[in-house]
């Protein structure tokens, strides 16, 4: 089911600038990630800061190439060696960047763990599902082989795999796509992580299976009482699952806030544009979509100033010359945006509420 009302009693200093926030589980400051390629340096992430707090579901949304996955892979220490990472990523006050691999390994799984998009490529095809879960359990907990196996069966049962006691011996190819993703979730929560990171966990799945998996993910999160970072391109999934949202564009945060604020009163032209461009299940034929003109920039040579400016209807000289200002407060508690010419939150009711959207060709 939906994650329900946002956690009310949390301070939400979503501004996330300056010093790492020690009340956060995971605190990212001015994260930059560059990749050396044959064509030059790809600036995948260009100064991103965020915090994840106890018990919250934080969505990081953006289109392909926006840097949403790279920023969490950096947090997990899972980027390839040719990636240049700078800034700060701290887990409960402990700096993770530059931490020796041995120490980081101990944190992976117990402090934070990850569910990937494609379970078929992230599961070992020649090892039974139960053994794979048990292996992860025994890395972090002193359990005998048979105890670990029992624990694996318990976990499979928790994520809704029927007849789990027998299914622990099954191999990944004997599972359907949805079941594999359940197994991945079981593996991810095996060591009671503080924060669960799900990278497009339902993108490869059919919609009825997606509904099941989002449900299981929320159930699993509550079972281990962790926070969840959900990376997705699907704003419907965000609306259904998250408490708080970061919208990324070209390696930077465009807008962030509690989901109700961002969906109802988007102030960054990119967020508003995205919401106007999606066809919705509940709007009948005939409503004209409003595409965002152009396409996302190449991160080899992002445009100077604001990266969204070439596609933006509100852009001025300011936007071509200067990068967008730092995230500034739009409305409390946590609605911020980084734009030279933000929309007025009082007027920017989501374009979705207007059934007769304007014609883009007009």
């Amino acid at each position, binding site marked *: *089911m*939906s994650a*329900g009302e946002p956690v009310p009693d949390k301070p939400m200093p979503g501004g996330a600038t300056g010093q790492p926030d020690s009340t956060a589980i995971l605190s990212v400051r001015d994260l930059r990630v560059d990749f050396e390629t044959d064509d030059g340096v790809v600036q995948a992430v260009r100064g991103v800061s965020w915090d994840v707090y106890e018990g919250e579901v934080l969505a990081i949304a953006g*289109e*392909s190439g926006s840097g949403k996955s790279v920023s969490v892979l950096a947090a997990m220490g899972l980027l390839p060696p040719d990636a240049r990472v700078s800034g700060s990523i701290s887990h409960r006050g402990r700096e993770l960047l530059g931490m020796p691999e041995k120490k980081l390994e101990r944190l992976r799984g117990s402090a934070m763990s990850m569910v990937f998009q494609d379970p078929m490529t992230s599961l070992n095809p020649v090892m039974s599902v139960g053994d794979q879960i048990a292996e992860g359990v025994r890395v972090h907990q002193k359990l005998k082989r048979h105890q670990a196996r029992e624990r694996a069966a318990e976990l499979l049962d928790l994520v809704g795999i029927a007849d789990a006691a027998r299914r622990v011996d099954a191999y990944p190819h004997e599972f*359907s*796509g*949805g*079941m594999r993703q359940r197994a991945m979730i079981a593996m991810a929560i095996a060591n009671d992580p503080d924060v669960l990171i799900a990278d497009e966990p339902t993108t490869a799945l*059919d*919609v*009825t*299976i*997606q*509904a*099941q998996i*989002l*449900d299981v993910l929320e159930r699993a999160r509550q079972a281990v009482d962790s926070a969840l970072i959900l990376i997705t*391109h*699907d*704003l*419907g*999934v*965000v*609306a*259904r699952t998250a408490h708080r949202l970061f919208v990324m564009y070209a390696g930077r945060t465009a807008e962030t806030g509690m*989901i*109700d604020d961002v*969906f*109802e009163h988007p102030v960054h032209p990119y967020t508003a*544009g*995205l*919401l*106007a*461009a*999606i*066809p*919705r*299940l*509940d*709007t*009948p*034929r005939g*409503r*004209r*979509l*409003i*595409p*965002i*003109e152009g*396409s*996302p920039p190449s991160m080899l040579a992002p445009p100077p100033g604001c990266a969204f400016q070439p*596609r933006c209807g509100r852009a001025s000289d300011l936007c071509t010359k200067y990068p967008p200002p730092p995230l500034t407060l739009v409305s409390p508690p946590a609605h911020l945006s980084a734009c030279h010419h933000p929309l007025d939150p009082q007027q920017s009711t*989501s374009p*979705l509420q207007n059934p007769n959207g304007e014609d*883009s*060709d007009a």
Partner: protein
Amino acid sequence: MPSARRGGGWRRRWAPARPQRAPASEDLRAPAVTEPAISPDGPLLRVSDLTKDFPVTSRSPLRRPTGTVQAVSGVSFHINRGETLGLVGESGSGKSTIARCVLRLIEPTSGSVNFAGTELTELNRKQMRRQRRFMQIVFQDPMASLDPRMTVAAIIAEPLQIHRLVTNAQDQVAELLELVGLHPQHGNRYPHEFSGGQRQRIGIARALALKPEMLILDEPVSALDVSIQAGVLNLLEDLQDRLGLTYLFVAHDLSVVRHISDRVAVMYLGRIAETGTGEQVYTEPAHPYTQALLSAVPIPDPKQERQRHRILLHGDIGNAADPPSGCRFRTRCWKAEAICAEQQPPLVDPGIGHPVACHFPETARVE
């Protein structure tokens, strides 16, 4: 975007090709099999009782046939001229197989595909190739369906050459590029120089080169980012208005299908579960599967999401190699009773205005 004036010219010049196609010899226009004609001059495409079996081979190197998978099991539908039929379903529902069977890119096992009076299943290869001029396909992944070593102009001109319709290739290509919203000067570039959305426009331009009457669109926007998707969907709508095209739109994304379709057919394991106008299927679904499917699609509106009632289906879409007896959805259905295992529910109107293949149909608002 090209101006309306230019669009009119395109149509004037290219329209006269149409009458040539009608087979003079015999009148195949007599209303066919199961469905009544809806538009006065009959539907453009009528598919009746279409089935497609794929052989299943053993895993041994000999690959002996061990059985069949029925990907499509007796599907009938029609599309009127100038209309969009959305064929929607999850993976394994048979929707893409239908799209390919209509063009005979895959040979149907049985059934009839009647396009503007011509029975396509009876044509020989040469006749069929000629026929494809009037019905073209756009694929999901433009990167995989465009030859990376050909210039865009060569890609778009290729169908014209094959069908010997080249008069002035350069002008024809420029006109097509402009028609799909690309720079006419960009014809000498290669596919990799374009973005995903532009590549899909190239795929559409290639499909339009032969002035077809119908486009079969197989997941045409699924590989695109949402900000790009909208532009391609708008383009498809504009082209339909201006050129009077008929679309068979195959997709898994229910929101996209609702947006673009006049009528919708919901597929489950090789059969149509429910069909009707977009309004009927989306606001008064009567098949439990349609209801579950619609309730599973998240809406980008947090307040609304919190109020929605969600029907969670258990299990996966069944195995087409060994489908459940009777109603194929019964293994996941909360309404299933004995009769569902015994009898296949026919696709008929239970008195609600549109056909549903269910023993216990019941309209319900999902939103």
